[in-house]
């Protein structure tokens, strides 16, 4: 009967308990006491030592105790035959395969593991020592340690030992390893070591670890030790425990410390502590050694060092001693150090002298080799600050050959570099015994002694030796050769001068070029100045400037008298009232205008004292410049003093602004209670078309200097007067008739750019034409909110009964001439028989915050009316820039009914308001004027230039020239 294996399906004998092929249990019930491990073999297995094994357990134990014999038996195949005989073909196959295994220990171990055994314990490692503490270690020697591994189990124990630390190595010092494999049965020893170079002094202990790994287990072995720091033993550096402390102590006493560096004490100290000395070159001496050390530590930036020569030519006879020097220096205030090496044994590096910023290397040959006629060459390497290396070629000509050198002995350090007179050989090579193929020696062309000519700006190039005194021979210069004969040419001064002259050429050209425009403008200025140099000094002959104005200020205190009606008059003028009393009228800085040519007035008073400027602060009126008056003789007082709260901060100061002449500036404090300050500036300015100083520019700046807001406004009352006419009518652009009554422009938009007044209503002879401009060029100056044309607020109007035509009705006696407050009714100009016109310009109150200000202003001066006689005259006003708008007003004298005007514009101009053909308005029925105005608003073309505007009325034609000019970005 056969039994089939449930796994591999192979046939087994009937008595088989386990499959002979794969060891699978065949499901045969085994007696409980007969475990496979303890089941007796049909025949025992006997070891060579005589030990007999009847069961697998006994066999396993015996193999473990007699491992070597077991291994041999395995190799011989005994196990294979035996196991096959006991019916364990599976184990027999394993044993047979193990015969050929290279690792017989491993194969035996595997075989034992497969055997059914209850006694085989798994291999287990223990390590001794479990931890390694080396205590204090001295640097300089390798530290050797051994680790013993024990197998507490059975069978072969294999695994690896790994160092987890970079200073801990397995194996011997001559064969370090970071990992070691092991395989042993009972015990093994693993050596490891710490290399000497890893033993560096430190304030902290070293802690490392070895890791032992076997099948299924890990054991870590800590390794600790310490390397105490040895402080510097003696000297100025004594007690230093770190390189930084060395550096700090050396910095304090560099000279003394330099000796320690130079003697190598510091290097030895480093070695004692197991540290790498940072200076790799030969140590310098003195302070240079300290510098060298500091640079090596990175504590200081190395200076730039230059060497004075790159080639040395020596000459001598065999056996002689020759010497030369090479110098290195720096411009910076740091010591120079140098380490010198040579590649030739005949060349000695003797010593290096250090002197602050200079290092002098003495080298030479103590005995010139016996190689007569040869040219020996050596390369000297100079390693200096920053580890910059320079190569210096030293050539030694061993005399006794065909070459004669002009200098016999180059031992003097001063005789460093002079011209060579050598006859080059025809072959082009120098045959000196040692065949050094080289090009023919060239005679260096003697150079001119040259000092760096950029010393003009104080610069010195780094190639100039600092210690060099540029003498005629130039012997101290690395790159110059003394001339063979004669003295050095004095090229210093001529080179410098020529360069200086060349450098001045562009400047000279510019200066010469600028003379022309400057001279031309000066000539022009001297002609223009006459026109601008207007003064009020009568002695100056300004008859050739008929259009000039004179600006006169009320800038002195005056005596006056007060009439019972309250009128104040200066001594001159009207007849004094017998009941009046004398007062002192302080300066008010009011202003008046007159024509210089004939002294005709443009304001009622020459000094403008009938004008007034009122500032309204929170509904309280303050008159600019009016602090009241004081009675001259109190005993004769009839009225009372009127002291007003305002005062001057600046009464009269020059006002200089481009384009303004005779400017005056005054600053008035309205009241200390509200701290509102008003600055008035007036001055003459050229008219836009006339370019003569025929216009007065009036400007006010109102500032709230208080800590709380105030509502502030300003009103200017201008008492107009032209020539002999106090009640002139006004010509208003856009209006169909002259204004001879009153006019109220209560909307900013309705206020024209200007209004005019002719002295005479005769266009053939209009006389003086005054013009008031309401819009200044500066954007920050507000245009007025309201303009009124009316009768001057003469106190006599207070008694006038018929007020029905006045506007508005104001209670009380508001007409107080120059004392008139903010608001007063508009009465027709000719209310009083004499007629007295005034223009009032309002800037309505608005709130000013603390520190805030507002600026207002207007102009008053002469206008221009173009009239070639006859019944038609033209005048313009506005902006005369390309694409700007201006007003053209035509005045028609005694127009015929149905008369029409035709406007003819130049090309590019266009009408903004008004038709091309306009009917002339009829004259007013009251006969107040004989002139009828027609106004157009015109936009100029895009081009600038001189243009003619023409107005035709039947056969009559009048031309008004206008100058359109745009400011230039490149020419002002």
């Amino acid at each position, binding site marked *: 009967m056969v039994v089939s294996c449930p796994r591999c399906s192979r046939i087994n004998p009937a008595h088989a308990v386990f499959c002979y092929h794969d060891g699978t249990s065949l499901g045969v019930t085994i007696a409980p006491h007969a475990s496979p491990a303890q089941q007796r073999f049909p025949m025992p297995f006997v070891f060579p030592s005589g030990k007999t094994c009847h069961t697998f357990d006994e066999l396993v134990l015996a193999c473990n105790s007699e491992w070597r014999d077991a291994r041999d038996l395995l190799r011989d195949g005994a196990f294979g035959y035996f196991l096959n005989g006991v019916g364990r073909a599976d184990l027999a196959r394993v044993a047979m395969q193990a015969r050929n295994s290279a690792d017989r220990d491993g194969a035996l171990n595997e075989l034992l593991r497969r055997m059914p055994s209850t006694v085989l314990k798994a291999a287990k490692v223990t390590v001794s020592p479990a931890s390694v503490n080396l205590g204090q270690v001295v640097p300089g020697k390798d530290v050797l340690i051994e680790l013993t591994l024990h197998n507490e189990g059975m069978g072969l124990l294999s695994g690896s030992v790994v160092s987890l630390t970079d200073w801990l190595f397995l194996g011997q010092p001559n064969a370090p390893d970071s990992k070691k494999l092991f395989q042993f049965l009972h015990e093994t020893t693993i050596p490891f070591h710490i290399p000497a170079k890893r033993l560096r002094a430190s304030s902290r202990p070293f802690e490392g670890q070895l890791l032992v790994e076997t099948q299924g287990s890990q054991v870590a072995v800590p390794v600790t030790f310490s390397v105490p720091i040895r402080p510097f033993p003696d000297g100025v550096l004594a007690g230093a425990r770190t390189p930084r402390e060395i550096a700090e102590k050396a910095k304090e006493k560099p000279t003394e410390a330099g000796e320690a560096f130079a003697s190598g004490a510091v290097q030895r100290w480093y070695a004692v502590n197991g540290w790498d000395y940072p200076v790799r070159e030969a140590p310098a001496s003195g302070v240079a050694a300290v510098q060298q050390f500091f640079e090596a530590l990175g504590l200081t930036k190395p200076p730039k060092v230059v060497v004075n020569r790159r080639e040395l030519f020596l000459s001598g006879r065999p056996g002689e001693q020759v010497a030369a020097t090479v110098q290195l220096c720096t411009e910076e205030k740091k010591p120079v150090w140098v380490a010198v090496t040579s590649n030739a044994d005949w060349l000695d590096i003797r010593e290096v002298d250090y002197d602050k910023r200079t290092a002098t290397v003495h080298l030479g040959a103590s005995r010139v080799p016996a190689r007569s006629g040869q040219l020996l060459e050596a390369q000297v390497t100079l390693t200096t600050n920053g580890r*910059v290396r320079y*190569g210096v070629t030293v050539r030694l000509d061993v005399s006794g050959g065909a070459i004669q050198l002009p200098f016999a002995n180059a031992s003097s350090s001063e005789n460093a570099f002079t011209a060579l007179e050598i006859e080059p050989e025809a072959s082009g090579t120098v045959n000196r015994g040692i065949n050094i193929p080289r090009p023919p020696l060239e005679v260096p062309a003697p150079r001119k002694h040259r000092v760096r000519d950029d010393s003009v700006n104080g610069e010195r190039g780094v190639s100039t030796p600092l210690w060099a005194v540029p003498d005629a021979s130039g012997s101290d210069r690395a790159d110059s050769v003394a001339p063979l004969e004669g003295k050095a040419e004095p090229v210093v001064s001529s080179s410098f001068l020529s360069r200086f002259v060349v450098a001045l050429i562009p400047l000279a050209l510019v200066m010469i070029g*600028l003379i022309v425009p400057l001279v031309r403008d000066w000539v022009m200025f001297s002609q223009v100045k006459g026109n601008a140099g207007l003064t009020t000094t009568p002695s100056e002959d300004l008859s050739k400037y008929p259009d000039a104005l004179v600006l006169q200020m009320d800038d002195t205190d005056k005596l006056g008298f007060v009439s019972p009606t309250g009128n104040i008059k200066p001594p001159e003028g009207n007849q004094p009232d017998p009941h009046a009393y004398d007062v002192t009228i302080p300066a008010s800085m009011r202003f008046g205008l007159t024509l210089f040519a004939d002294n005709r007035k443009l304001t009622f008073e020459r000094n403008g004292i009938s004008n007034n400027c009122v500032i309204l602060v929170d509904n309280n009126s303050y008159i600019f410049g009016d602090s009241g008056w004081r009675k001259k003789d109190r005993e004769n007082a009839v009225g009372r003093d009127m002291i007003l709260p305002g005062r001057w901060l600046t009464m009269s100061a020059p006002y200089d602004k481009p384009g303004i002449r005779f400017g005056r500036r005054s600053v008035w404090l309205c009241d200390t209670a509200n701290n509102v300050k008003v600055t008035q500036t007036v001055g003459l300015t050229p008219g836009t078309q006339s370019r003569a100083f025929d216009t007065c520019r009036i400007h006010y700046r109102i500032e709230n200097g208080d800590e709380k807001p105030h509502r502030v406004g300003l009103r200017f009352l201008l008492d107009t007067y032209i020539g002999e006419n106090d009640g002139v009518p006004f010509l208003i652009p856009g209006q169909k008739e002259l204004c001879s009554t009153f006019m109220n422009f209560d909307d900013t938009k309705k206020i024209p750019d200007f209004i005019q007044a002719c002295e005479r209503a005769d266009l053939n002879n209009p006389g003086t034409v005054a013009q008031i401009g309401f819009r200044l060029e500066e954007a920050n100056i507000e245009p007025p909110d309201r303009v009124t044309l009316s009768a001057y607020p003469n106190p006599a109007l207070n008694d006038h009964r018929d007020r029905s035509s006045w506007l508005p009705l104001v209670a009380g006696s508001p007409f107080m001439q120059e004392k008139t407050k903010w608001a007063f009714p508009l009465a027709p100009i000719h209310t009083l028989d004499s007629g007295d016109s005034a223009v009032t310009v309002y800037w309505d109150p608005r709130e000013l915050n603390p520190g805030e200000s507002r600026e207002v202003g207007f102009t008053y001066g002469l206008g221009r009316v173009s009239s070639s006689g006859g019944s038609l005259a033209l005048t313009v006003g506005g902006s005369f820039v390309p694409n700007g708008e201006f007003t053209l007003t035509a005045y028609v004298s005694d127009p015929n009914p149905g008369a029409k005007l035709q406007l003819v514009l130049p090309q590019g101009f266009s009408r903004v308001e008004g038709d091309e053909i306009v009917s002339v308005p009829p004259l007013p029925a009251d006969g107040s004027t004989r002139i009828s105005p027609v106004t157009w608003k015109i936009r100029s073309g895009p081009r600038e230039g001189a243009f003619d505007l023409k107005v035709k009325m039947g056969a009559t034609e009048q031309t008004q020239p206008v100058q359109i000019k745009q400011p230039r970005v490149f020419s002002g």
Partner: protein
Amino acid sequence: MNLRWFLYYCAAWGAFGGLVGWIVSLSVLMDKPVLQEAFKGMGLGLVLAIILVLVDRAFNGFSWTVVPAVFVGAFVGGLGGFVGGMIAQIIYGSTQWNLSLVFGWTLTGLLIGASPGMFELLARLARNQDTTGAFKKVRNGLMGGTIGGMLGGGFFLAVGYGWKRWLGIDATGLWSPTAIGFVILGACIGLLIGLVQVIFKDAWIKVESGFRAGRELILSRPEIIIGRAEGCDIALFGDQGVDKLHARIVTRDGGYYVEDIGSGGGTSVNGYGVIGLTRLNDGDLIEIGRSSLRFSAQGRTK
């Protein structure tokens, strides 16, 4: 020439260029203010650009490329002046703000400033070469021109204001404010173009010994040729130890390298012979023949 002389010549010849530009502008008289000022600006830009290109070439070495460089520079400068003047007048004419006048000058200066380096940039673009150095030169010129234009415009206003204040009359029609303003503008543009190039230089070479010792060359191009030939960037005439094309300095990956290009005498750096590309560090001494050159670099190239 060294860098300080370069700055001085830039400023001085720029001033001269401004003066010549003003003389040219005097002859421009047109009805339309915009065109007039545009042509005035063009005249200024043309003259300034030509002079600045010549100064730049004088510093960096004359070669056959100076002619096309002048043409390109003049075109760019003239166009810049034309556009700047036109825009300036349009804005100034409508606002009459001083600020717009300064803006116009700044714009003019900006466009003129690009002229010295424009030829090189265009040439490198056309040859598909590295344009880093040329672009930097144009960029530096733009910055210098902008600042110079701004300052020049400011001075132009100040001079005009001074004349009005001291003479007390309207300066319209005077020559000297414009002339002085143009001169200062030209000087400012020239100086600042040079200054920006000097300040922003990465590396430069100074001839310490040899032909025209003391001159300095800013390494603004990717390759600098050293030799005895006429077209070399650093010409070392009169030194028989220098070949016609002896060595070159190239820029690679932010660093500077010297290479001996087949010379007989060899090239050394700090006494050590150059084999292949040798990196240059700040302060290195390059020796060629009997000439020596010092390489200097700003921090970022170390």
